[in-house]
């Protein structure tokens, strides 16, 4: 994408200034091509319990991408979407398919034997190696040119507050799971400090000053002077807080809606809050790798906002013949796709600071699932969907493989960052090298 002015850019998208929140005021936007190497980012989005194959897979392997119901929300971004057929999780060993579907998904390596028993198979512990998001994070952090303040962000939506092989997909190393943060307020605090509390503090300073005044009235000289010194600090704090919070940031912080409860029914809202925080974090270059984990393996969210009261995992175990359940599962997966389309859209709306194009031009979103199908627990032919852009990737089509190990997909993603790995995870699954996605 060539360099453009803000106005031209907005016109191209058919957006008026009012519809673009928080984008204006970025320094250096109007200046043409940046000198630095273009940035590259990765977002891995997880949803559980498999998909509905008949409503998911495009029929044709060639030609323009045809989107069925589940992938329909990606229609506006069809040119930038890549669906992979025939990529499988071949890792076996300890743990049942859900546990391995989760723990071996980003790591490509077996789980340790352990004490956590799934629905079948042997009990297992944590994964034996680090995950691809952490591998790429470490690679980027090693080089000053690509280093960011946080490196990576691990975010969740309604992930249960337990650390076990069903809730963890990221690993910093063997036996070192990295937990996602599901509370957007906590994420905000980590990224932007205690800015949100400033409003609460600011609101009470008047009252405190009045009380100090009343307290000083009854005192003698020396004591009153101490109270006056105290009052001076309160006044200083008030002055400090009336300056804008985001001095020093390239991109304004997103205002978070206050008082959103963190529970099942607010999952859609929480997801959007996390998405906003992620887009802003990218725009401020606070990190270049992120994971967004919707619930967990065997996730039992109740999609009440879709009018579906049953738990997701329970539904996923109903037989193929149960048309009602399959319909619900289709709508659930379509909803997940919609959320990913929304994330991609927000990235596409946000100009790349200091560079050309948009954030999406320099970001690869990978939608992953622990299973291919919930009721069969199949790990073959997993529904991998890529949206956005990465060097060497040709988008807007289906790429078909024949039972390729998913380790090789991760090698390809790493290579798009300039990180050439001879193998990733268990080397036994890396024959053939990186997948050709160009």
């Amino acid at each position, binding site marked *: 994408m060539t360099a453009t002015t803000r106005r031209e850019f907005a016109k191209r998208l058919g957006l008026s200034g009012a519809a673009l929140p928080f984008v204006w005021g970025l320094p250096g936007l109007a200046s043409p091509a940046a000198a630095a190497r273009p940035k590259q980012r990765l977002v891995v989005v997880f949803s559980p319990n498999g998909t509905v194959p008949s409503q998911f897979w495009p029929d044709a392997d060639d030609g323009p991408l045809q989107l069925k119901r589940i992938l329909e929300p990606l229609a506006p971004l069809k040119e930038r979407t890549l669906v992979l057929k025939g990529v499988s999780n071949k890792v076996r060993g300890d743990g049942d398919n859900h546990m391995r579907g989760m723990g071996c998904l980003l790591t490509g390596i077996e*789980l*340790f*034997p*352990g*004490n*956590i*028993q799934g629905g079948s198979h*042997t*009990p297992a*512990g*944590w994964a034996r190696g680090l995950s691809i998001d952490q591998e790429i994070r470490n690679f980027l952090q090693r080089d000053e040119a690509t280093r960011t303040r946080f490196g990576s962000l691990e975010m969740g939506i309604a992930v249960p*507050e*337990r*650390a*076990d*092989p069903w809730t963890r997909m990221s690993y910093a190393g*063997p*036996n070192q799971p990295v937990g996602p943060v599901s509370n957007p307020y906590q994420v905000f605090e980590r990224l932007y400090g*205690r800015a949100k*509390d400033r409003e*609460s*503090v600011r*609101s*009470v300073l008047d*009252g*405190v000053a*009045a*009380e*100090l005044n009343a*307290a000083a009235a*009854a*005192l*003698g*000289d*020396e*004591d009153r002077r*101490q*109270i006056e*010194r*105290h009052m001076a*600090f*309160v006044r*200083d*704090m008030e002055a400090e807080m009336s300056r804008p919070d985001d001095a020093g940031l390239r991109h304004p912080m997103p205002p978070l809606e*206050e*008082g959103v409860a963190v529970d099942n029914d607010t999952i859609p809202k929480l997801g959007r809050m996390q998405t906003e925080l992620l887009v802003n974090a990218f725009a401020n270059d606070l990190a270049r790798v992120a994971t967004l984990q919707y619930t967990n393996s065997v996730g039992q969210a109740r999609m009440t906002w879709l009018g579906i009261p049953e738990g997701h995992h329970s539904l996923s175990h109903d037989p193929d013949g149960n048309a009602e359940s399959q319909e619900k599962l289709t709508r659930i997966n379509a909803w997940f796709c919609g959320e990913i389309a929304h994330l991609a859209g927000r990235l596409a709306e946000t100009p790349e600071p200091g560079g050309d194009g948009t954030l999406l031009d320099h970001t690869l979103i990978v939608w992953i699932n622990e299973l291919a199908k919930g009721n069969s627990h199949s790990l073959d032919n997993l529904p991998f969907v890529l949206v956005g852009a990465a060097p060497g990737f040709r988008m807007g089509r289906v790429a078909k493989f024949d039972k390729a190990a998913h380790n090789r997909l991760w090698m390809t993603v790493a290579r798009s960052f300039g990180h050439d790995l001879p193998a990733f995870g268990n080397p036994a699954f890396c024959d053939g090298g990186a997948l050709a996605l160009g």
Partner: protein
Amino acid sequence: MRALHRPAAALATALATASCDRSSVTADARTGAEVYAAQCASCHGPSGEGVAGLYDGFLHGTLSTAALARVISDTMPKGDPQACTGDVAVRVAAYMQGAFYSPEAYARVRPPRIDLAHLTIAQFENSVADLVGGFRAAAPAQEGPRGLQAEVFDGRDFRRERRKVERIDPGIAFDFGTNAPPGSGAGSAEFSIRWRGSVLAADSGDHAFRLRTGNGARLWVNGEAKPAIDAWVSSGGEVQEHHATVRLLTGRAHPVRVDFFKFKDRTASVVLEWKPPHGAWAPVPADALRTASAPEVTVVTTPFPPDDGSLGYERGTGVSKAWDDAVTRAAVEIATHVAAQADALAGTRANAPDRSAKLRAFCGRFAARAFRRPLGEAETAAIVGATFDGAKDPEAAVKRAVIRVIKSPWFLYPELSVARDPGRRTASRLALALWDSLPDDALLRAADAGQLADRGQAAAQAQRMLADPRARAKLRAFFHHWLETGRAADATKDAAAFPGFDAAVLADMRTSLDLFLDHVLWSEASDYRELLGSRRLFVNDRLARFLALPPPPGPGFVLVDAAEGDRAGVLTHPLLMTALAYHKSTSPIHRGVFLTRNVMGRALKPPPEAIEFKDDRFDPTLTMRQKVEQLTKPTDCQGCHAVINPLGFSLEAFDGVGRFRRSEGTKPVDTAADYPAPGGGTVRFANARDVAAHAVASPDAQRGFVQHLFHHLVQQPAGAYGTGTLESLRGAFVGSGFRIRGLAAEIALTAALHAPAPAAAGQEL
């Protein structure tokens, strides 16, 4: 006034001898007082009290005379520093030291007054814990059984119907090998254990916890919502170490729970260890555990700048930006914590129809408890009403109201809040003196019923309060401050001179001292004479071996007769001896200064020149005593060292780690010395026991101890409570049989019942 230039020769006569050259017309022969009056008083006032607009504040500090002279020489008078240099500056400095500058002189000239003080760090964190704690269930008494309540289950799910054993375990340190817990009847391949109770902290601060297991376990400390350690997943069959750090408050029981399970692992083991602020890594001992659980304690973790220690004890005087910032951050921390539990604290539920009203009522009660008094109508409207009306939702309102209350001067400056209510004022002062915290409900009820106006009833309340763990904690803190045990923190010693000394031995020493203090203070007699005169010592196996004492007759720490050596209670305690010593040797000077100031109650000026003790400058065949005598021989030093040295030498029988010794190298240890009594004449001390006996019998020493305790409990100068107060407290202390607990109560009552002088225009509290 411009000074005359002086020839260089005159500058060389720094510490002048009698033959100063008076023939030069430019030599300055004025006394220090005269120079001060001529050149300094115009800005600093005739007695160092300052002049408004020119130098605002009393001129006082802790610099030695030489250092003060250098400051004057280099920088003063302001605008013309050449006007007072060299020996003239020294004379001025010497004058100032004696007249008003040194802490002792300053205390003399400035009329003692009760200063406006905000909460100290300890008072802030204790008050917050009790402020929120008042809305939770009451904590159980801490006298119950030690250890943890244990339940062993067959199967990995802690199912009640498969519970096999209920018992008390002294701690969590088990290696089951490949078997089930012995005698439990649970299956060896799959079983679970739950331990519950509470944990006590000897000192407030960060406690590091370590859970070592190859199986699955979770640890909760002071927080039921989220485990401090979540090691549920065993992985690869190896024992892993998991860490967490939790801040605990002394004087309080914090709930603790461990869930543990084995499932198809080959072996099973679990150990829970900790490292308290002044301790070494060790399994959490039974002494720190109680089987009764307790409600969560609200512990503030925001770091604060240190309290003002310029008078030698902690006070909440003076404000700084760092302090105001810390208060604000702490307010946010507390508000977030309270808002998250608001429904439970306010006695309501998420969907209750009257939830908003309940939350408002809670905020009103929260403010009243924090301010130690009921709120007026306008106050309630401002703090509760306006906040709730203006906020987006009740949770945000609760958060704001809490921030407002914590930042309020009515919370931070207790005296200001209760100034107009004598009963509440007495209650507030008693709670601060004995607990460093807020008054509890019983005390407030007594106040409102007018009972606290009667000294007898107030004394009964003080007795009740002394029995509370918070009073124990405050008194323990006093003794650690008085005995300067902080000097021993992280002490390391030369391995050749003191083989075997390590962090574990140091931790044992501290435990030994704590147990001894508890043993004396909380006995019926609570006798100061036993504190200084006891020949007994708490030792465990390791400490006994280190001190070359016979092993104790039982497990853990036992009170034994340290038969050899003339031990004198805390004065010769190994922790003190270790703290007041160098890396390779004793330090009679540090020990002497400590005894002079803290135990004998005598004032000591700072040294004219602070000189470092360099061991290698001396003839190595000399004993430490001989080296010190040589070093401090000059007349100028003897002014103080005539007092310091005999006291320091009396402790030479105890080496740099508190072991008794009869000889130092090849020479015998000599502890006998002549001590100049304050009134004149000398007293012969043969050893430390004589020093202790003198400290008990001497009215000056008694008064010194009373004053130290007064300062710690009340945090105001004793003189501000009347000129005869200290003496009458001393008399009562002696008359009661030197009962320390009694003295603490009397001090607290004196401060609590002190009525302000009749108010004149601009009069302070």
